[in-house]
C-alpha cells in the first residue's frame, strides 16, 4: 500500500524505522501530538499504542492499550485488520465511516514492524455541503421539470394528472389533488408512486379533513405536524395505498385570486415522516402547480366563451337541397382565427317550389371586428327573407339598418334566390357593389353575370340590378370574394391570382359538382399564395346536378347528407 494522498510526509519517517513504535513521539515530537486531525497508532494485534490530542477528544473513552474494536466503530477496526493481514481486494478509495455524528476519511500508514498509524481526516462538512448541493440540484431539477411539464398543457384534467403524478414521483409515496368544488362535487386526481393516475368526481366533505377545507378556502396552510394521519378518510387514499398513512402534507394550490385546489401528499407509517424542508419544498411545488392550473382554467373558460360567441359567426355548412347543389369554402385572413370579414349564408326554401336564398359578401376590414358586422348582416338578412322576392327592397332595408348602426363599416354582397325548374336551375342574382358571379357552362365557357349595384352601409340610398340566370345540368354559378382574385403569390411570388386565372381555372371545372369546384378554386388560390399573407377568402358554388333529380335514388341521399 502506497502513501495515502494528503497524509503528511512526516509519517514516512516510520517506514523502515528500526525503533519501536513507542519511540514514535521521540521522532516526530510535538508535531504529531499537535496534529489537527485525530491520529491513532495501532499495533498488529489491534491494540492502541498511542493517540494524539485530537484523537483523544474524538474517542474520550480510549486509553493506551485498549483494543481498537472496543473503542472505535467496526468499520475502522475491520479496516485495520485488513491492513495488517494484507487482505487482497481492499477498497481502493479512501476508507470512510462515521464516528459519532461525524464522518472521517481514514488513511493508514503501516510500518515494517506491523504497527499502523491511522490518520483520520474529518470529512463531515464537505459531505454535508455536497449533500446540500445535491438536494438543491435535485429540487431545482424537479421544479424545472414541473414547470415544463405543467406549462406544456392547457387542458385542466391533464394538468391535474401531471401535478399529481409528479408529486407522487418526487415528493411523497402518493399524492391526491383536490380541485375546487363544482357545486358540491370535487374532482380528485390520485397518483401513487409507480402506479397509474386516476381521476374521479365525487361529492366529498372537505371539512372532514383538518387542513383540507382551509387549503381549498385559501387560508394559510396547516403545518404537517398538526394533521393527524389517522384522520385521513379512505376517499383520500389512492387505490393500492394499503398501509395506514404515517404523515401528511396538505398544500394549498394558489390560483389567480381564488384557490386552484389542494395537494395532499401521503407517506405510510412505515416510511420516515416529512421533514420541514420537504414541507417547504412541497409548498414551492404547489405554487407552480397552482399557477399552471389557473392558467389552464383561464384558457379553458376563455376558449369556451369564444366558442359560444363564435358559433353564430361561423360560416354555415352548405348541402344539396331541393335538387340543387350548394357548396362553399372559407379561409380567414389569419390562420389562427376562424372568422373574418367575408361571409356567406344559406337559407333553404321551405319546399322545392320555394326559392333557396344564399348570400356571399365582404365587410370592409378583417378580423373579429369585421366578423361581428357579418353576424349583424346575416341576422338582418335572415329577418328580411320573407321579402326576398324583391332583392332591391331587401338591400334597401339592409342599407338602412347598417346606416343606423354604430358600425362605420360598409359591405358588398351578392344575393341569390335559387330554384330548380325541371332539369334546370334558375337563379335570381343581385350584386350590391360586389364582384359579379361567374357561370361555368358545360362547354367550358365562363360568363360573367351582368348584375351591378351599389354597396350597402355607406350611402343613404342603394340601387341594384337583379339578373336571372339559368344553369343547365352540370353548370355552376360561382360567387367569390376579392380575397381569391387578389391572392398574391404565384411562381414569381408577387403577382395577383386575378380574374383571368380564375376564369381559366373555372373553364376546367365544367361538369364538376359544386363541392369539387369550390375545392378546386380554394386549392389553386392556396397554392398560388404559397406561404404568403392573404385577405379573407370565400367562395360559394351553386350547381345544377348532372345526374337527374333525387327521385332516382330511393331515399339514400338524405342519409348521405346527414352523415356528412
Amino acid at each position, binding site marked *: 500500500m502506497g502513501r495515502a494522498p494528503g497524509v503528511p510526509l512526516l509519517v514516512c519517517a516510520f517506514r523502515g524505522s528500526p525503533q519501536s513504535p513507542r519511540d514514535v513521539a521521540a521522532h516526530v515530537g510535538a508535531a504529531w501530538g499537535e496534529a489537527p486531525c485525530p491520529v491513532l497508532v495501532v499495533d498488529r494485534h489491534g491494540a492502541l499504542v498511542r493517540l494524539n490530542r485530537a484523537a483523544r477528544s474524538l474517542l474520550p473513552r480510549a486509553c493506551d492499550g485498549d483494543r481498537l474494536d472496543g473503542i472505535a466503530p467496526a468499520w475502522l477496526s475491520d479496516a485495520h485488520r485488513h491492513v495488517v493481514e494484507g487482505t487482497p481486494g481492499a477498497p481502493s478509495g479512501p476508507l470512510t465511516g462515521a464516528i459519532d455524528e461525524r464522518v472521517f476519511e481514514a488513511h493508514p500508514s503501516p510500518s515494517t514492524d506491523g504497527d499502523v498509524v491511522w490518520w483520520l481526516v474529518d470529512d463531515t462538512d464537505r459531505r454535508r455541503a455536497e449533500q446540500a448541493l445535491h438536494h438543491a440540484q435535485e429540487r431545482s431539477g424537479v421544479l424545472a421539470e414541473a414547470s415544463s411539464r405543467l406549462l406544456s398543457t392547457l387542458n385542466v384534467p391533464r394538468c391535474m394528472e401531471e401535478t399529481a403524478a409528479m408529486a407522487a414521483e418526487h415528493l411523497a409515496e402518493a399524492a391526491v389533488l383536490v380541485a375546487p368544488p363544482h357545486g358540491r362535487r370535487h374532482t380528485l386526481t390520485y397518483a401513487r408512486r409507480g402506479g397509474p393516475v386516476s381521476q374521479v368526481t365525487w361529492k366529498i366533505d372537505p371539512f372532514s379533513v383538518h387542513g383540507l377545507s382551509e387549503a381549498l378556502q385559501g387560508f394559510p396552510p396547516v403545518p404537517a405536524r398538526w394533521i393527524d394521519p389517522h384522520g385521513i378518510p379512505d376517499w383520500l387514499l389512492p387505490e393500492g395505498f394499503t398501509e395506514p398513512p404515517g404523515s401528511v402534507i396538505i398544500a394549498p394550490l394558489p390560483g389567480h385570486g381564488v384557490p386552484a385546489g389542494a395537494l395532499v401528499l401521503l407517506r405510510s407509517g412505515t416510511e420516515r415522516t416529512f421533514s420541514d424542508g420537504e414541507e417547504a419544498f412541497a409548498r414551492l411545488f404547489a405554487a407552480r402547480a397552482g399557477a399552471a392550473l389557473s392558467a389552464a382554467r383561464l384558457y379553458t373558460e376563455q*376558449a369556451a366563451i369564444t366558442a359560444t360567441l363564435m358559433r353564430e359567426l361561423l360560416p354555415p355548412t352548405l348541402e344539396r337541397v331541393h335538387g340543387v347543389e350548394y357548396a362553399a369554402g372559407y379561409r380567414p385572413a389569419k390562420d389562427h382565427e376562424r372568422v373574418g370579414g367575408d361571409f356567406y349564408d344559406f337559407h333553404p326554401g321551405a319546399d322545392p317550389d320555394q326559392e333557396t336564398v344564399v348570400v356571399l359578401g365582404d365587410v370592409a376590414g378583417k378580423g373579429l371586428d369585421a366578423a361581428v358586422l357579418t353576424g349583424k348582416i346575416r341576422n338582418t338578412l335572415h329577418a328580411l327573407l320573407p321579402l326576398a322576392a324583391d332583392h332591391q327592397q331587401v338591400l334597401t332595408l339592409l342599407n338602412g339598418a347598417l346606416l343606423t348602426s354604430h358600425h362605420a363599416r360598409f359591405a358588398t354582397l351578392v344575393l341569390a334566390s335559387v330554384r330548380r325548374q325541371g332539369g334546370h336551375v334558375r337563379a335570381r342574382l343581385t350584386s350590391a357593389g360586389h364582384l359579379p358571379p361567374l357561370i361555368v357552362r358545360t362547354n367550358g365557357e365562363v360568363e360573367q353575370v351582368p348584375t351591378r349595384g351599389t354597396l350597402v352601409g355607406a350611402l343613404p340610398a342603394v340601387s341594384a340590378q337583379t339578373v336571372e340566370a339559368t344553369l343547365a345540368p352540370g353548370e355552376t354559378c360561382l360567387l367569390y370574394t376579392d380575397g381569391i382574385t387578389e391572392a398574391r403569390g404565384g411562381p414569381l411570388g408577387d403577382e395577383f391570382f386575378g380574374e383571368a386565372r380564375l376564369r381559366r381555372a373555372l373553364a376546367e371545372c365544367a361538369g364538376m359538382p359544386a363541392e369539387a369546384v369550390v375545392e378546386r378554386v380554394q386549392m389553386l388560390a392556396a397554392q398560388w399564395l404559397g406561404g404568403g399573407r392573404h385577405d379573407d377568402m370565400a367562395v360559394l358554388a351553386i350547381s345544377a346536378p348532372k345526374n337527374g333529380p333525387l327521385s332516382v335514388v330511393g331515399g339514400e341521399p338524405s342519409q348521405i347528407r346527414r352523415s356528412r
Partner: protein
Amino acid sequence: MSQVAQAAPHRERLWDAVVAGDEYAGVAVVQEALTAGLDAEAVLLDVIAPVQEKVGEEWAADRIGVAVEHAATAVNERVVAAVAHRAAGGADRAPRGRVTVGCVDGEWHAFPSRLVAEVLRLRGWRVDYLGGQTPTPHLIAHLHHTDPQAVLLSGSLPTRLPAAHTAITACQAVGVPVLAGGRAFGRDGEHARALGADAWAPDARGAADVLARGLPRPAPAAVRQVVDDLPHLADQEYTLVVHSRGQLVKQTLVDLEDRFPAVRSYSDVQRERTAEDVAHIVDFLACALYVDDPEVFSAFLTWTAGILEARGVPARSLSAGLDLLAARLHDFPRASRLLDEGSRALAARPGDLAAGPGTRV
C-alpha cells in the same frame, strides 16, 4: 374467398361509377358489397381506397382530366360517408379512447386521412376528424381542448414536410404523441423518423394496429428546436433557397430565354406553366434540403418528367432548368449536390409513372 379477392369486382364497378361522376351508382356499389358480406373496413380499404389511388394514377397518365379527377374524388367522399353512416348504425362499441386525425397544414389531399378516421371509428376509437387544410394553431388548440391519446398526421405532399415538422413538434410539446402517415413521410417512414414523429404507419390498418399497441406520451420537457432534429439546417441553405424562391424562378426564366430562343415566343399561359414548373423544382429542392434526402428531389423530377411526357411535353426542359439553377446556386454545396443527383436521376430514368409525389394536381 378472401375479403381482398372478394373486393375486386366491386372495385371495378365503383371505378366506373366515380369516373361517371355518379354518386348514386357509387353508393349502390358499396351497399351491395356490404350486403354481400364484405365488412365495412374492407369496403373502405380494399374497394374505395384503391379506386381513389387509381384516380390519381389515371390523372398522372393523362387518361382523365382535372374535372373528372375532382368529380371522382367528390363522389368517393360521398361513398365513404355512406359506408360510415351505415356502419355507425351497427353495433354500439365502447370507445377505446380518443384520437385526433388531421392533415399537415397546407395539405389538400384529405382523402387518405378521411379513410383512416373512418377505419379507426370502426375499430372503436372516438375520432375527431379535422379534415384537410387545418392550420397548425387550430390543431394545437384542439389538442388543448380534447387531450387525445394521439394525433394521426397525414401528409401526401413532400413540400409540406417542413410544416409537418412544425406540427409534430408542436403536438409533442403539449404532450400528445404523433403517428405520421402518408406518402410524404417516405416509403418506409424515413422522413417521419427524421422529423421526430413518435410512430409511423404505412396504411390505415397499420395505423390502427400501432394505436392498439398504445403510444406512450412524449416527455413534454423534451421540446425541441428544428435544428435539434435536423442539424444540417444550420447551414442556412434551406432558408436562403426559400427566401429567394421568387428571385430564383425569375432568374431561371430569364436564363431559359437566353439559352432557348424558342422560349421567347411562348404564350402567356405557356410562360406561366414554365414558371410553375421551375417554382416546383425550387420547392422540391427546398424540401430535399430540409430533410437532407436527395431521393425526395429525384423522385419528384422523374415523376414530373413522366407527367410532362404523358402530355407530350419533352422532359429535357427539366434538365435545362436544373442546369440553370445549379449555376445560380453554385455557392450552396448541398443544393449543388442535390441538383447534380437530380440531373443524373433524370438521365437514368426508365420512364416509371407508378409512384411519386403529387404536385400538379
